[in-house]
């Protein structure tokens, strides 16, 4: 009996003979789970309301849940909100695109040349440990609180995961494959196209996925701090204007955008690299 069989006893494996019974059991379980989750949500709401009513925490931090919900719904009906959302997402994606355009080719280059890699290693370590947001005050001075500035900061943040993952993927070639390539005297160009690229692709994709969720976070962070137009800017302004419920509604939207981004990228990555599922997780 294999480990897989031990892990998943036959009841969990698909049983083509009697699908109806199985489905019934399953859906009953799912309803139970949903009920529990609903209960948890209600519990959170209850605790929140209790904290608000008791005044235990500042009411600026914990506004009435009802107000947040109302703002959340109202926001969706305003054009300004959708404009802010579009600005934030497009700035984040532009920075991300620039990161890919620079990061992937450089990553491949550094991945195939040992000498180049060793020379750049220290620089890369410095770069990836640098908190890009610290560039913000200087960048605001140089470029102003503009979308260009935001894009530059996003780019300097997302470059590193893409670069590092691509290098890692290009360098990490199975020794057996490497020997095979050497044994058959595959010429360098062919080797690059047929061996290095396919090998690096899943890792680069992972880097892009990490970078994509980072790009949204950086974009919103930049906006919050510099009051650059976008979701983050609106959020910070709502807070300083004394509208904590509106600010929290923006936070919820920001979370939803991040969640959606993650879901989309997982799906895209899964589709594009279905041939190489085993490599979807890799060195951070």
């Amino acid at each position, binding site marked *: *009996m294999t*480990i897989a*069989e031990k892990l998943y*006893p*036959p*009841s969990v494996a698909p*049983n083509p003979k*009697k699908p109806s*019974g199985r489905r019934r*059991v399953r859906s009953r379980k799912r309803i139970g789970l949903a009920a529990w989750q609903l209960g948890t949500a209600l519990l959170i709401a209850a605790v929140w309301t209790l904290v608000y009513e008791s005044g235990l925490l500042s009411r600026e931090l914990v506004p009435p849940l009802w107000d947040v919900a109302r703002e959340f719904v109202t926001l969706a009906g305003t054009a300004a909100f959708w404009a802010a959302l579009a600005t934030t997402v497009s700035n984040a994606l532009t920075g991300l695109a620039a990161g890919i355009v620079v990061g992937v080719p450089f990553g491949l280059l550094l991945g195939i040349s040992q000498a180049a890699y060793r020379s750049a290693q220290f620089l890369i370590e410095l770069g990836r440990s640098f908190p890009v947001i610290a560039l913000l005050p200087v960048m605001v001075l140089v470029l102003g609180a503009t979308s260009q500035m935001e894009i530059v900061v996003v780019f300097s943040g997302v470059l590193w995961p893409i670069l590092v993952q691509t290098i890692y993927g290009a360098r990490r070639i199975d020794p057996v494959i490497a020997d095979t390539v050497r044994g058959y005297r595959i010429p360098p160009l062919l080797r690059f196209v047929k061996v290095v690229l396919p090998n690096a692709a899943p890792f680069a994709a992972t880097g892009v996925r990490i970078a994509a969720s980072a790009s949204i976070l950086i974009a919103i962070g930049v906006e919050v701090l510099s009051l650059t137009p976008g979701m983050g800017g609106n959020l910070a302004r709502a807070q300083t204007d004394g509208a904590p419920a509106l600010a929290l509604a923006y936070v919820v939207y920001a979370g939803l955008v991040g969640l959606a981004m993650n879901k989309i990228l997982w799906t895209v990555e899964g589709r594009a690299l279905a041939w190489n599922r085993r490599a979807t997780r890799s060195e951070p």
Partner: protein
Amino acid sequence: MTTAEHLDLLDERRARHPLAVKGLSKSYGEGSTAVRVLEDLDVRVEPNEIVCIVGPSGVGKTTLLRCLAGLLAPTTGAVMFGPTTMTGPILEVGVVFQDYSRSLLPWMRTRENVSFPLQGKGMRKAARRALADQCLNAVGLPDAGRKYPWQLSGGMQQRAAIARALAYQSEVLLMDEPFASVDAQTRFDLEDLVLHLRKRLGISVVVVTHDIDEAVYLADRVVVLSGHPAHVVDVVEVPFGQDRDQIQTKAEPAFTEARARILGRIRR
């Protein structure tokens, strides 16, 4: 194996109770979707006996072993240790898992691995250590205590796993495909170690294996499982006593005969 002199602490280990399953059936799932794996099994392991369970792969040998260990509850029937019905794992039954490289914890030295279950029983540190060292000696690993499991070879890791089961004062050792992933020579050595421990300590052993040669070489009785759901299709008595030899025993006509009979049973 020059380990007899180290075994004083282990001498109390002699098996006193039979381990038996009575009318055991095991199903996974419920109602109309249930899949029956084992049906109405009766197997009895007498004290100091070695019983091997063989059968085609996927037949449910491991399920049976997990029931014997108290890790799985039978759907119907019972697992009895002596006069008592088992409802979960008990002290007297030790398990040696198939995947030794995973069941030994890589963050503990080998000695700590062997004495870890004793810590759970509340034994004092000095006593744990002494017993662990004796058990490592008993399995022929006198110098491995300070090493980490991943610094040992596969065969040595499996010896360490056996030492852990011995240290747990088990009278019955359950082994799930214990030697499936070691090379042939190591495998013969480990088989002889099992025979030696049985003779020296008086323990009972249940070995699940797909290797018929191994089953006949080790066992006093071989239980053959087959079919879906699996049931006992044959029980073969092996008449070689406690002392066996890799070359001579395997050359006996009785060995060949038992082997052919089991193979025929599984094939059919």
